[in-house]
C-alpha cells in the first residue's frame, strides 16, 4: 500500500511550505506554485509528507493512499 502526494490547485495559495518540507517531491515554479512529483512515496518519506500536508495553511496538499485513488 503506497502513498502519493497530490495538490489541490484550487485550494493552493502558493505559501510554499510544502516545498520546504518535502523537497524530494515538490519544487516551486516561477510563480511560487508547487510542481508535484506524483511518484509513489518510499516509506521513509511518508511522515515528512504528512508533516508537509499539516503545515499547508489551506489544506491544499494531500497525502493519498494508493487504494483510495481511482
Amino acid at each position, binding site marked *: 500500500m503506497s502513498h502519493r502526494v497530490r495538490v*489541490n*490547485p*484550487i*485550494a*493552493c*495559495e*502558493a505559501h510554499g511550505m510544502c516545498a520546504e518540507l518535502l523537497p524530494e517531491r515538490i519544487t516551486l*515554479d*516561477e*510563480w*511560487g*506554485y508547487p*510542481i508535484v512529483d506524483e511518484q509513489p512515496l518510499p516509506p521513509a518519506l511518508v511522515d515528512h509528507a504528512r508533516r508537509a500536508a499539516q503545515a499547508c495553511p489551506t489544506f491544499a496538499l494531500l497525502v493519498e493512499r494508493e487504494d483510495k485513488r*481511482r
Partner: protein
Amino acid sequence: MSAAQSTAAQNAQDPLDADVPALPRLLADIPEEGPMSLREHLELRGELPRFERRRREEGPLIATIERAGLTGRGGAGFPTAAKMRAVAHARGRAIVVVNIAEGEPASMKDRTLAQALPHVVLDGAELAAEAVGADEVIVCVCESASASVGGVAAALEERAARSRSRPRAQLVTVPATYVAGQESALVNFLDGGPAFPTFAPPRPFEAGVRRRPTLVSNAETLAHLALIARHGSAWFRELGTPSEPGSALVTLSGPVTRPGVYEIECGASLRSLIEAAGGTTARIRGALIGGYAGTWIAGELVGGIALSREHLAPHGATLGAGVVLLLSEHACPVAETARAARWLAEESSRQCGPCVHGLDAIASTIEQIAVGETGQRRVLADLGSVASLVRRRGACGHPDGAVGFVLSAVEAFASDFTDHARHGRCDACLPPGELPLPEHVRVYRAGEREDLGVRRLARPRR
C-alpha cells in the same frame, strides 16, 4: 448562423459511398423557424420507446448504447454507456443534467438543437434518466442564447401537459462563459456556487448535484441516444467508422458560402464538408479543428483531413465539440492567435495559480511576437517552457486546451510567427479579426499593445 442555413445540403459524405444510408438523422426536417412541436416530433420520430428497468439494476438501454458505441459529443469523447453505467451503479438517487451551456464561441450545434429540435434532446434525457434510475432532469442552457432558452422552455411545457409520468424536468440558465459548460462547473453552479470547475474527486458521476450521482451529458449526445433507442445500435453503426460509428454535428465557420451547423458521417472528409457548405469563398490559410481548445492545421494540409479521431490524431487534433473554423488568406494567423490567447487567459476561472499566470504569460508572449517586440529572446523556447509549467496543473482542462491551441498555431504557421518576431506586424494584422469571440474581448490592435491589466495575483481568487 440560423437553422435555415443548416437545412441546405446536410449530407457531408465522400461521393464514392453513394449507397450508404443518407443523412440527415438528427437534423431531419429541422424547422426554419421556432422549435418543432411535440406533435410534429412524434409524427416524425414515432413514440418514445419504453424500457423496463428493474430496481437497482441498470436499464437495458445502456447495453444498447454500448453496442452502438456512442461517445460523448461535448468534446471529451467519453464512451456514453460507461458513463451511464457508472452513474447507475453509484450510491444514491441519480440526476441527469443536459448540458446546453455551449461556452465555446465557435460552436453552435447544441444551441441549434435546443432552439429547433428540443424534443429529440429531451427524449434522450428522459431515456437516460430511466436507464440510470434518475428522478430528476435539469436542462442547463446558456443564458445569452434566448432562442434556445425559449425552445427548451416551450418543449418542457408541451411535455408537462401530456399526462405520462416522467422524471421531473426543469430549465436552468447558466452564465455564458467558456468554462461554465465544464461538468464540475455546471454541478457547482447548480449547487448554488459559481460556474467554476471544482477539484476532483469526487467526479459528478459519483457525487454531483446535491452529492447525488449525476449524469452530465451533452445535448447532442442525448439526441443520438434518443434515436438509437428507437432504431437500434445496428442502425447507428450503418454510418461512420467501426471505431467511430454514427453521425455527428459540426459547426463550420469561416470563408465558405454557407457556414453553419452540419451533420456529418463520422470520418467524412473535410473537403466533402466544405463542398456541402457550398465551397470556399477565399483561399484557406488554416483550419482550427476542435475550437479554442483545439488544434490548428496549416492550409496546405486541409484538403487531406478526414474528421475522425484516427485521422486527426497524427495532426495532434481531435474534433472536440465538433468545431471547424476556417481562416481565410485575409487574416493574420499571429494576430488571431494573440486575440484568442488573451481571451482564453481572461476566461480562466482564476482559481489555480499556474492557469492564471501561465495563460497570461503565454498571451503576453504572443502579443509581443505579433508586434515584433521580442528582441533577442528565444520566444518559441519560452513558450515551450511555460507550456510545460501549465499542463496538468490546473483543476480542469482549460489551461491544457489553451496551451495546445497556442502551440499548434505556432507550429502550423511557423513562418508567420518568425516573420512577426523579426519584423513586427504585417498588412493583415488589422482589427476586427476573423475568429469569432464574444464582443467583450478587448480586440488586439496592431501597433498598440493595450495593457490589458491582468492582475498579478499571488492569490488567485476563489
